């Protein structure tokens, strides 16, 4: 069994489609979609419909802060652009789609309790604190019994690990390199954003997870980067009714990957 972990799609249809095609080609059969399906991008309805269809087909879908904000309006701390996009996004979605987003769970377990999927962190998933570094990673890893956690929210790919003595390390993964996740450690996978990468590389992020069959058979994670039609995603933004300033800014960020 091979999982595709996809997060922070942010209504970027082109990136999502490219990632799904890559995951299929890599032999993924299960999907964990870690939230923030909307916000920033030009195709919220298409992306949410696709996520709804995948969820009906057995994919795990988790709620992110942008998805929640669609139901309850933007929060005061939010970036002004994000708020503006949220208001616009609400108008793009029908009742079914809005209901789907508002009812998504904050976390989900899989692989007999070995894996935990959550959007922001495992210690306080409803308050959207970022896993910025080792301190938050340790807090998150301590908050559950799962050996492997995967979360989104942070847009840059990262792998944290913690030993039995509670010492944590971090690692900036290289794309396309399968990495063993030995069973006597705990691991926190941040695949990086599919629809709005921010590490200076515009290619879409996601991760493949092979949970491993037995104790002695390590789980494996492979961080992937997928080139997609950034120009088409930008053109869609410019063609939308979003305020010109905002769509230009968002398109620029997609082009630069920041």
């Amino acid at each position, binding site marked *: 069994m091979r999982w595709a972990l996809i997060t922070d799609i942010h209504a970027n249809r082109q990136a999502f489609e490219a990632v799904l095609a890559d995951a299929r080609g890599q032999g993924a059969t299960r999907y964990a979609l870690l939230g923030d399906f909307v916000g920033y991008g030009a195709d919220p309805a298409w992306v949410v419909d696709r996520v709804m269809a995948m969820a009906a087909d057995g994919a795990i879908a988790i709620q992110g802060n942008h998805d929640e904000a669609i139901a309850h309006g933007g929060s005061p701390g939010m970036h002004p652009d994000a708020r503006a996009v949220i208001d616009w996004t609400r108008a793009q979605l029908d009742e079914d789609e809005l209901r789907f987003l508002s009812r998504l769970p904050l976390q989900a377990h899989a692989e007999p309790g070995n894996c935990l999927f959550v959007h922001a962190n495992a210690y306080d998933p409803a308050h959207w604190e970022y896993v910025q570094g080792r301190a938050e990673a340790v807090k998150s890893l301590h908050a559950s019994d799962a050996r492997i956690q995967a979360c989104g929210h942070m847009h840059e790919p990262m792998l944290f690990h913690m*030993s*039995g003595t509670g010492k*944590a390390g971090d690692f900036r993964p290289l794309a396309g390199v399968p990495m063993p996740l030995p069973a006597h450690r*705990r691991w926190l996978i941040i695949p990086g954003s599919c629809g709005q990468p921010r590490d200076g590389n515009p290619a879409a992020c996601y991760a493949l997870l092979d949970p491993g069959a037995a104790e002695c058979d390590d789980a494996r994670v492979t961080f992937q980067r997928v080139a997609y039609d950034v120009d088409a995603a930008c053109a869609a933004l410019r063609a939308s009714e979003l305020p010109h300033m905002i769509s230009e800014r968002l398109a620029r960020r997609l082009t630069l990957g920041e």
Partner: protein
Amino acid sequence: MTTTAPPSSSPPIPLQAGQVLDGFRLEERLHQGGMANLWRVCRVDGGNEDCSELLMKVPRIKGGEDPATIVGFEVEQMLMPQLSGPHVPRFVARGDWTKQAYIVMERIPGETLRPRLDDAPLPPEEVADIGARVATALAALHRQHVVHLDIKPSNIMFRADGTAVLVDFGLSRHEQLPDLLEEEFTLPMGTGPYMSPEQVQFVRNDPRSDLFALGVMLYHLATGERPFGQPDSVRGLRRRLYVEPVPPRAIRPELPKWLQEVILHCLEVKPEKRYQSAAQLALDLREPGGVALTARAEKLQTSGAMRRIKRWFFALGAEPTPVPPGGEQLARSPIVMAAVDVDNATPELLAQLRETVRRIVQTETGARLACVSVMRVNRIGIDELTDQHGQSLHVKQLIALKHWARPISKALNLDDGRLTFHVLEAPDAAGAIIDFAHRNGVDHIVMGARGASALRRYLGSVSGQVVAESDCTVTVVRQPAG
């Protein structure tokens, strides 16, 4: 918390001969070390007995917290399945920490290099031969993105055919995997006498650290003495940042200059002043005649007190310069081979070849340029090795080769052994070029095409054969038309 961390509470059950563990029967304990025990084992899966050479390594958990042993073994369990090739023991299986941690691997028969240290000083040719084999093994390891970080005689073995095998990856670092050791220790990790200056400063991702350790080993094998003694404190370890080792020829004046050049080149404090790749070091150890001698080769005493004080001062609180990722550093340090037909090529082609080589070498500051020409000798019979004036043809070719390369050397400032010259004597030019490139781990061959000459029609194309048969990148340079 219910982690699956190595259980420190469960009392370790002593393993005994005859016991079967996950399908492996323990036959005989071969070695009891501080960190691990080594057992000869047989595979007894499902009635089929396989008593081919297998070794089981079992960590010695001494109860309680023992992060050094545990994490080191974790690292080895993680890295060994990633490695392949003749220069590492083949990985077979590993045991889970919740039951009994172990690694089963191919058993390399024979002793490690450790006992040979007691025979030091060894003849220079043997030191170079051992060094070349180990450097070749390191080149293979570094290509797999791993820095060993504990190179020393007791971690080096040899197959029956002489191939060096590196063992014990408990301190190693895989550039593309998380470093489990990084967070674990507050002291430098390594073996005192062999540790590179940057390892003393907690850098764990520089392949050139292994070349320093190999230099320490070669120094010891060549002189019978350790270049930096056997320090037992961090302060003692830091001395190598500013105290130079006594030049080997000050201990053994009969040692050849090229060997001192090579050893001191490995022992440079700054990694960027050392050989830039293990393959470049192996090339020098295999072709001592081509080693470019610098001031290192001449030294007979350590630098004066003033110099040492200066170095000490700069070493105070010195931070190592950040290194690019190992793979990148390696990619920037290729061996480029210019195969030059100094006797037969036209001046235009020679100029074009020189310009192309200059362009290639210029782009990589760590590149090493080996200029090679082939002196054809007959397959059978006695060759004229001197011309009618009695001048050696070999020397003549060497002079011509150096003359050809002079503009490159001048333009690119190729000092410090980055430029070497080799005249090969062989009946078949293509075969000699292919063989030299293969033996010395050449990354890129640049050579001229013979063009549409009558010679080519008779003899076939040398470059064509090199392109077809060599195992590295080949650039064929043509004379501009018209």
